[in-house]
């Protein structure tokens, strides 16, 4: 059985590693592109959200390359993503693909069910063997997040704009190809060194002058550069260091692993809940609560601004975006909400990003000049 799955940032490397380690043949669909997006848009309901359309494009890409089964991730909570696995399955059936669909529901702590699904995929390999493969995959995921973080720090300071991206890509390839845990760690350490080597020592001293922006929002839009129109790269070029509030390895620790393995993350999760509490007291689906809580935390941690990104019509993030102006006002941190989908015009996005960065830079310059820091006023950028 040849298996395919949808892209989400670096996730493909992890899924491929785990499945191949267990002897499952895998077809990785081409990276999301305008072509796969066109396919997804053509075959999805117009009002479905952006991630679904991109997933459909990926699945078709994988099936056309010979996959016989599709692995899908089910959603969490009241957001529409909860039934998207079924919608996606129906769309593929209607298109005439005779493939097996395996839906992995996040187990909310019940790891056994998830492992059972993975075992089924692998032709009932012993549970211990499956667990070892998963651990190996997660090792790669952590390494990839570390590389992404190093890239985000180096981008605003590099000598020749763009070179660090090539260095980063080579490091990602090295991690992807690593055969065991030790090789993964070595590749990651070497990658971080190479990325840091793209920054001149003088520039590194300027680190404190770099604007820092936190990225919050719906997890797929945060993680997948094609979906968010290369937000991190664009901001890096504008001289901004971007930190995602949630990296994939954090997300996996929170949602997929049983308690003992997410102790550290749990601390953050309860911090997030407490930080969000004055604005939002309960789970609203997806990352809505996290977007609010992380915006508060990032602001307390001294970030210059927060960018909130979500797919157009995303319910949990609409809830968050209606609360963020208050967060912004109370804490004096500028927040910009971006709702993106296939209709987003690049020029408008670029203008708003540049204006937001100018806003942060001029605000910080005013602070530096001893001028009373002007308080931020609500969320910037949105509009019809």
């Amino acid at each position: 059985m040849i298996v395919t799955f949808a892209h989400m940032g670096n996730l493909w490397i992890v899924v491929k590693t785990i499945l191949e380690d267990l002897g499952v043949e895998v077809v990785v669909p081409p990276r999301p592109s305008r072509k796969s997006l066109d396919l997804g848009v053509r075959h999805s309901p117009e009002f479905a959200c952006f991630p679904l359309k991109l997933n459909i494009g990926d699945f078709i890409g994988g099936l056309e390359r010979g996959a016989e089964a599709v692995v899908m991730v089910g959603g969490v909570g009241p957001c529409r993503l909860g039934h998207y696995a079924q919608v996606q399955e129906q769309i593929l059936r209607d298109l005439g693909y005779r493939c097996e669909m395996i839906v992995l529901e996040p187990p909310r702590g019940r790891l056994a069910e998830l492992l059972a699904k993975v075992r089924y995929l692998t032709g009932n390999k012993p549970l211990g063997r499956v667990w070892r493969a998963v651990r190996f995959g997660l090792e790669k995921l952590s390494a990839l997040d570390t590389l992404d973080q190093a890239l985000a720090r180096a981008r605003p300071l590099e000598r020749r704009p763009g070179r660090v991206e090539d260095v980063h890509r080579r490091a990602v390839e090295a991690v992807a190809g690593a055969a065991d845990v030790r090789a993964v760690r070595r590749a990651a350490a070497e990658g971080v060194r190479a990325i840091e080597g793209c920054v001149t020592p003088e520039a590194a001293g300027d680190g404190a002058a770099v604007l820092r922006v936190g990225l919050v929002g719906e997890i797929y839009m945060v993680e997948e550069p094609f979906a968010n129109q290369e937000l991190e790269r664009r901001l890096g070029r504008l001289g901004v260091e971007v930190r995602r509030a949630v990296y994939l390895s954090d997300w996996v620790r929170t949602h997929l692993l049983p308690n003992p393995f997410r102790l550290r993350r749990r601390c953050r999760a309860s911090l997030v809940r407490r930080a969000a509490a004055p604005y939002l007291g309960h789970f609203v689906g997806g990352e809505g609560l996290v977007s609010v809580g992380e915006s508060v935390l990032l602001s307390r941690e001294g970030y210059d601004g927060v960018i909130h990104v979500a797919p157009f019509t995303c319910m949990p993030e609409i809830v968050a975006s209606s609360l963020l102006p208050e967060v912004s006002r109370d804490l004096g941190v500028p927040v910009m909400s971006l709702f993106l989908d296939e209709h987003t015009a690049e020029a408008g996005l670029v203008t708003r990003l540049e204006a937001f960065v100018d806003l942060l830079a001029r605000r910080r310059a005013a602070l530096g000049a001893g001028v009373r820091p002007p308080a931020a006023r609500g969320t910037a950028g949105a509009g019809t």
Partner: protein
Amino acid sequence: MAGQHVYLGIDVGSVTTKIVGMLPDGEIAGAVCLETLGQPARQIMRGLTAVGEALSRRGTPVVAGVGTTGSGRNLAAALVGGDVVKNEITAHAVAALHQVPGVRTVLEIGGQDSKVIVLRDGVVVDFAMNTVCAAGTGSFLDRQAARLGLDIREFGRLALRSTRPVRIAGRCTVFAESDMVHKQQVGHSVEDIVAGLCRALVRNYLNNLAKGKDLEPPFVFQGGVAANAGMVRAFEEALGHEVIVPEHHALMGAYGAAILAQEWREGRGVSGRRSGRDEAALTRFRGFDLRERDFRTSAFDCDGCPNECEIIEVFLDGALVARWGGRCRRWERDTAVPPA
């Protein structure tokens, strides 16, 4: 007064192209506003020549810096030799601050977009611009004026004569138009319809664009639509406060770009990335008469990946001066003007 230093500001919008020549003390010494007509490059060259002539009347202009803004800012910078390339929001905010130093809210409505900018203590703290819908922008007003057989310049004066503005559905311009047709057929006067339209557009602007923003006076209203007295009054009624329309309201983007060029030249620019050129601060300006030069743009589809990006190349006298449009680095080159 030979050798007069000037800063040029160029604002290439969707509908009009504005060029301003500014003296170091902030005075506007020459300005033109041309329709972009879908031919931004040609209009930039024409406008530049005209501004050059206007400036020459006050002594030989020595250009010390060039700022560009508007949706065509990269093209303008590549063509003219721009030193600072800035988004419209920053340019408009900077210009408004120079005209009305304590400004706290900038309302801007141009040919195809509208913005609201909130400032406190001279710093932008919040902004929004329309992204999906061009409802209530200059193009729409132009079209409605034409449909009513009015000169756009009469439009505002007519609105002021209204005693009982009609309520018009303003959420969507398509529906606004059908509602206007209906109101005409029912027999309302043109004055009342025009005034009602102004109110509907202001309502739409405040409810959508400015939703959730703290709008505090002083208010400055700029952009081409600020020439419309009916819109000014509708804003004043809705906000319950006087709205200031600066003298050069239609040129504010270009004016702001010129001010930013001056800040850059004097090393006062605030930017996210250090450009490395700041110390020398020698302008890239190519001269006022570009019409003699051979300027071309061409486009091709990249075949490197399934994104098939459309790559635009800009040539001056046969030499490649700029290239953009790619999602990745494949076609990047150093001559492209970096964002300031």
